[in-house]
């Protein structure tokens, strides 16, 4: 899996790292049990401060995707640990609402929006139950 950081982007670096790791999990490039490099290692490879990397890892841990195993290091949790609950669904709905409304205003139909969602979805809604 590739992690790409754009230093000129408006998006904070830790969020770019976070999003790239989320993408890697979504596309199955890394999965349950896989290890992420240490904050120092990733920081060195990206030429990014290790506290920035730590911030990304903390966000992943808080969301339940990552846990620190004492012997193995930073490992990805199994999907059962972060199934979507009602709280997540309503938060997702809240985040998507302004985006969808803006798309509507600009003339995109329901079909257009669904097409975009299909393009970015790695598994087109297939269940990830093991």
């Amino acid at each position: 899996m590739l992690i790409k950081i754009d230093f000129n982007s408006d998006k904070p670096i830790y969020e770019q790292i976070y999003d790239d790791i989320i993408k890697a999990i979504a596309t199955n490039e890394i999965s349950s049990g896989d290890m992420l490099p240490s904050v120092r290692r990733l920081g060195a490879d990206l030429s990014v401060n290790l506290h920035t990397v730590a911030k990304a890892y903390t966000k992943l841990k808080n969301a339940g995707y990552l846990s620190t195993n004492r012997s193995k290091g930073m490992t990805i949790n199994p999907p059962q640990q972060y199934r979507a609950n009602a709280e997540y669904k309503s938060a997702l709905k809240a985040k998507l609402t302004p985006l969808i409304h803006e798309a509507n205003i600009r003339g995109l139909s329901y079909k257009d929006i669904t097409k975009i969602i299909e393009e970015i979805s790695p598994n087109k809604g297939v269940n990830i139950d093991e």
Partner: protein
Amino acid sequence: MNNQAILVLAIILPLNIIFAAMPYLSRKNLSFSISIPSAKWGIDEFKRIRRNYVLIVIAITILIAGAAFILINMNEAALISAGIFLNIALFYLAFFYSRKKTKAIKEEFGWEEDARDITITEITNDKSSKAPSLYIYLIYILVILGTIIMGYLLYPNAPDEIIMQTNLQGEVSSVIQKSTNLLLYVPAVQAFLAIVFLFSHFAIAKSASYVDPADPKTSAKAGRKHKRIWITTMFIGGLMMLLLFTFVQYSMFKGLDNAISGYVALGFTLVFVIGIVLVTVKTGQSGSRLAKTKDSETINRKDEKYWKAGIIYFNKKDPAIFVEKRFSIGWTINFAKWPSAVIIAVIIAVVVFSLLR
């Protein structure tokens, strides 16, 4: 033909061969440490700069070797030191000259730079990309123990005066009375060498990996293979050095003829140097010769401003201590990090200490 001239030539020849080959072994998006579009590496202007650089290096070789042949009366140690020092100084002049020419060509063409300031790395759990296990260094300990034991076994029949140094003409220049303490002299050197080679293992393994943004997957994989090859090479090189000293211990306490020791040492060194050259040619900088990567029409200037004069890396924001060299093949340190100062201090201390003995 005098001996010292041959020795000077023997030292600067492989050195200058590597110096001359450097531009051809580096990654294609660099020319004399200046970032260029990798697609433009092969244009005539750059070909000319590289060819002229090689000609200058050849001229340096002839100059230094020639001087060594002529200055027969000069003190041997001074001649060799001066020769090597001058050779390296002239090499740097050739490097900076070629670098200046590269900058001029780059300005003339005005190629587009990558609009984005990006950095990429690959995370993988690929087992083949892991560095060799540290357990192999137990072999080093075995060799050192074996050397000590061998010394003890030879000791009763060893000559009373142990030869410590001979000069180039084969004459003995230093002897020491035999004593049991002397048995540990060579193993102590071996232990120090073992530590140095173990350190190189960590330095390479921990070093920042370079990924070419134009072809991140291929270059990341080649980069990992490059590191693994070099760690293995350093391990083998270290083993050879240790075995060479085992032979020295044998030679000391068996009272072997100096000439034999000299030839064995030369043989080991030759194999070691040839090995390094072969690995260098095979892997290239950052493993660029291990796999073909896609060319880029734009310049990626990541970190270029942190490479002072193209050779010294100084970047406070980069947490990495060890980074790959920008012009040649190998690793250097990030001078902005405090451990680098410690490393330099230790190296200088070792050199000064051994000179004072």
